[in-house]
């Protein structure tokens, strides 16, 4: 059942929250051992106690809550007070934050219920959820395949019916990639639209928290909850809150005709199976909107630029993990601090994380920074200017979300470069700070295929509108995988 229907039921009869939670926990019980979406699950009795307290709020207050009684799966990169937050790393295996991320405060304030923390690539570094220090998550549509990443746990939880809403984070596609591979909806908002306070940083200039759901309206509902200016985040945009549910309804009513650009290089990059499915979306949209081809002459530089900036920032952001104040503890007895630091970081970080920290430090060091970091920044600026121009002639651009179908577990380990290159379509939005949505469009041999639509900053309502139009045509709404 979609969230907006659940909300009506819960507000009419709050006792129904318990029934629904029973269903959710029963699904989790039956599929979790196969899918492994969660790292930490809040026990059902603790959730019930929380709901009992929530029900004591006044009627008026309850009615004003945007997600009263709705369970949410939260990616384990977002700080939750009192619930351990591991980033899927040994480094933070036992770390329990003493504070809530701003988005969690907002969710709690609007009546949402955090039921657990979802699996991910370690410190969000990966595209398959296989770099998790604990275990990989399996794609609910085909357990031999990856769910995508890094927000693979959140996407899998939605696809397997373990939660109706989820939060992910997206630095180079980490919401859209798993949304695509798991057949759910995922939105990376405009950079600065959702507070990053409490989001454990990977690459600060590109990280963004976003909503994930099984239909477009639910995406809008969750976006309404989490978006908005936060004085605790200096990169947060000082803009007044907008109601995306109303905006979406209004656009669906008015049905404006838009100009949509087809990025031909990004279609050509894609595998045959993905391309043929993606053209179905193009056909649907172009039968109503005006479609024009647009060219992006730099697809080669995109991935390199993204990884240089991301690794540079990551090497800095991850410097704080030294085992002194929190995280992995190794005794200082009779050892110098530098020796202990080295030990903590050797044992606490996995291979992929260490690789990116090492490369990032190298990229920023004297003698190399000009060659890599400064050049990457220059390209980033050129890319922004290019898209400023593109967005003057079209309202949105469309491409496949992922150029490939979900790979088998282990497949990318042999070929990390192929994994990096698979991010080519998604990294653009992070580099330029634009919003982008992944919309399920087809199933190819039982595997989900999705398209991505990107638009100018702060035009999320347009993406939601196009997504809703597609959703109505495809009927991919609230579909849940049968996990065998």
């Amino acid at each position, binding site marked *: 059942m979609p969230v907006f229907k659940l909300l009506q039921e819960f507000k009419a009869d709050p006792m129904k929250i318990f029934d629904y939670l029973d269903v959710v926990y029963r699904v989790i019980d039956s599929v979790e051992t196969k899918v492994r979406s969660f790292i930490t699950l809040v026990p059902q009795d603790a959730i019930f106690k929380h709901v009992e307290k929530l029900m004591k709020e006044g009627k008026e207050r309850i009615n004003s809550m945007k997600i009263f009684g709705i369970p949410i799966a939260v990616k384990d990169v977002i700080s939750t007070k009192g619930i351990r937050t591991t980033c899927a790393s040994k480094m933070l295996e036992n770390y329990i934050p003493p504070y809530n991320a701003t988005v969690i405060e907002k969710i709690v304030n609007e009546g949402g219920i955090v039921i657990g923390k979802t699996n991910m690539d370690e410190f969000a570094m990966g595209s398959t959820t296989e770099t998790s220090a604990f275990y990989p998550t399996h794609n609910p549509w085909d357990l031999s395949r990856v769910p995508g990443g890094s927000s693979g746990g959140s996407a899998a939880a939605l696809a397997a019916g373990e939660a109706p809403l989820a939060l992910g984070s997206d630095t180079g596609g980490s919401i859209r990639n798993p949304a695509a591979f798991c057949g759910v909806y995922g939105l990376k908002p405009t950079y600065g639209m959702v507070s990053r306070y*409490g989001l454990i940083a990977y690459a600060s200039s590109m990280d963004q928290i976003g909503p994930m759901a099984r239909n477009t309206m639910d995406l809008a509902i969750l976006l309404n909850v989490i978006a908005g200016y936060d004085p605790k985040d200096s*990169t947060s945009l000082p803009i007044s809150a907008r109601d995306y549910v109303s905006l979406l309804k209004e656009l669906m009513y008015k049905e404006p005709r838009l100009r949509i650009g087809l990025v031909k290089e990004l279609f050509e990059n894609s595998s045959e199976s993905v391309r043929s499915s993606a053209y179905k979306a193009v056909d649907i949209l172009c039968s109503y909107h005006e479609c024009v081809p647009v060219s992006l002459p730099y697809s080669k530089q995109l991935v390199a630029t993204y990884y240089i900036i991301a690794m540079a920032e990551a090497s800095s952001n991850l410097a*704080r993990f030294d085992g002194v104040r929190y995280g992995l503890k190794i005794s200082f007895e009779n050892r110098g601090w530098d020796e202990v630091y080295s030990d903590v970081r050797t044992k606490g970080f996995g291979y992929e994380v260490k690789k990116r920290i090492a490369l990032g430090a190298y990229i920023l060091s004297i003698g190399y*920074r000009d060659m890599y970091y400064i050049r990457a920044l220059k390209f980033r600026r050129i890319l922004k200017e290019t898209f400023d121009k593109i967005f003057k002639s079209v309202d949105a651009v469309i491409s496949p979300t992922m150029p490939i179908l979900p790979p088998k577990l282990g497949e990318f380990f042999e070929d990390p470069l192929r994994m990096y290159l698979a991010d080519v379509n998604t990294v653009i939005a992070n580099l330029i700070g634009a919003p982008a949505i992944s919309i399920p469009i087809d199933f190819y041999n039982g595997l989900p295929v999705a398209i991505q639509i990107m638009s100018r900053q702060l035009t999320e309502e347009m993406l939601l509108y196009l997504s809703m139009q597609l959703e109505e045509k495809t009927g991919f709404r609230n579909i849940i995988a049968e996990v065998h």
Partner: protein
Amino acid sequence: MHVNSLEVLIGLEVHVQLTKLKSKLFCPTPADYRKSPPNTHVCPVCLGLPGTLPVVNKKAIEYAIAVAKALNCEISDRLVFVRKHYFYPDLPKNYQISQYIGPGFTAIARNGYVKIFVDRNAKVVRIRRVNIEEDPGRIVYMGSIETSPYSLVDYNRSGVALLEIVTEPDMASPREARAFLEKLMAILEYLGVTDPREEGAFRVDANISFKGFGRVEVKNIGSVKDVEKALTYEIIRQKKIVEQGGSIERETRHWNPDRGVTIPLRSKEYEEDYRYFPDPDLPPLRMNRDFIERVISTLPELPDNRIARFTVQYGLDEYRATVLVLNKWLADFFEDAAKIYNNYKKLADLLITDFLRWINEYELSPENLKVKPLHIVKLLRLWDEGTLSVKMVKEILPQVVKEGIDIEAYVTASGYVKIIDRDYLREIVEEVLRENPKAVQDALSNPKAINYLIGLVMKKTGGKADPQITRELIQKALEKLR
């Protein structure tokens, strides 16, 4: 080449905590951490917990602009923070949010200067740049850094706003370095941005070299006096090495104030690579001219302006004006007194010499002095009238400084004045001896008869003459007659 002809180059990096701020530089934790037990004066942000973000304290920027202006710097129109990376246990994020001059980033201010006085000669010390940055926590050693078996970390200080003020190597002696620092402290005091006397609020890294030799950095010196001592020590140490034909390696040393020596910390053979890059959590801010001008327009009168005004308004020379102004409280005291007393030079001289000496001697705190400007003015007036001699003024001044006594009342009540004025008493004594030849004869033959003469002096002075001094003076006078 003889070592004494070697040119000494001294450059300073001064770290000043903005102690007058209400909160730390990037979080709402109150800035005054000093009375808190270790690691209790912290929040998720200044502890560098995962996911936390910095938000710049706007007041700190205003303070930095004020300081930059007072140091005659060019103020940047962009505020950019960079991350300076190094691993150290007092640094929670293992990078410090700081400023630096490089591609895409700059310091809040650069290219300034400060005018100082040494041996009554004026000199200019150039300011290379002013940075705003966060203070790390503190490493606490058991005993001294050399002998401590382990070290503890206290993050209370972490995130406190610091200004780093870097000079060019323009100082040629430890005395010049001291003069610069005293001037700098005065400027900061006038601006009201810091109380440099707070423990750890004012820390100096001193770079010293002989021209053509390796540069030595002495880190973390805690007071102006210690800077002078450490530099003096280094000059002697380095001279000895040069004299013996050795070479001075580039290195970092630590000042041990208890032993009065510098000790090597680590050799600095290469420039450390801090991997600076603009902090993506703090987007560059435009500092528009209006904002900067608004801050500047609220600045109080600065030392240089006050010195200039003192020379015009009170006719003082620049040296006297500087000594007064660099001790802000003393300059305030002077101006209060000058409202009711117009021999400004005499007033200034008394204040910057004996008065200041006794204040220091008694270790009196300028904030709660018992002596008020009126006490000093009354003393000067009695001096001008001739009621008090120079000598008496000097004798009585310590008590006035310490207790803040009203000299007029004191004179009347105790007659203390005439007791100690030997010149005056000598005249009375001579008069009495002239008028009483008989008694003089008696006293010459019988020592006990001297008491009669003392009685006569007492009578003439209304009983206010000091019997001891009177006796002494009469004895001396009688000696001459023998």
